[in-house]
């Protein structure tokens, strides 16, 4: 469900992730709420997946609404690279 190069945003509560999903969908951004991949620790077990093309729009919208994720990862081959300090 997560392709190479996709971003996976992890939130620290189910309410935040649901709110983020609603916000991004209202903006018609191509995102998908997914179960957080096992390799990534997530308190609520949920994550939002999006492709690189919409990254700036997604993160811009989340920042504006005060809904930035706790952690952000990018799928690279079989692994997830943590994106540090860019949010």
């Amino acid at each position: 469900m997560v392709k190479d190069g996709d971003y996976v945003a992890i939130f620290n509560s189910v309410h935040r992730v649901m709110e983020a999903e609603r916000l991004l969908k209202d903006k018609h951004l191509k995102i998908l709420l997914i179960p957080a991949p096992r390799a990534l620790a997530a308190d609520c077990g949920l994550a939002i997946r999006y492709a690189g093309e919409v990254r700036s729009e997604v993160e811009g919208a989340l920042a504006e609404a005060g809904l930035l994720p706790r952690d952000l990862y990018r799928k690279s081959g079989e692994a997830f690279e943590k994106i540090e300090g860019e949010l």
Partner: protein
Amino acid sequence: MNSLDVRGMACPLPVVSVKRALESAEGELRVLLDDGAPRENVRRFAEGRGYRVQEEPLEGAFAFTISGAAKKPEVAASERAGATVMLIGTDRMGDGPEELGRLLMKNFIITLVELPELPDRILFINTGVLLTAAGSEVIEALEALGNRGVEVLSCGICLDFFKKKESLAAGGVTNMFTIAESLLQARSVVRL
């Protein structure tokens, strides 16, 4: 050759009639049937039982020549002993707030893709069919399950009821005959 005309019959009568005819007939069976669900369901039913189906388009209908007696006509391949059937009768998981229920169901189906052991067949009925129709967020996951050999089937009556017949986006259409048979012949049924 025996012949049978199931044109104009409502689901699941075409499959029921073909099943009876195949059980009593020797040799080939020629069936005249309508396009759409009857054509798909009868083909799936016959091929699932090991028959060969040759199709011939006619004006406004189709003719199937069904031949080659199945080795075990009483048990379809997908309904063999040991089959695990999942029945999804809702677009929500559990009782509680609607939004949470939808999220959990979506999460459940996407999680299945990651698991090593999968059901042989997933049957979607009632509001469950909203998950297989266009606009659902689990189409990608259902396609991935289909590619791993899971048979994804939606109840035709239900699609019709929700006016989603034309927008089925994952798997095939089935009828109550197949649903009932699958449930009765499965070794285990997981109901959501």
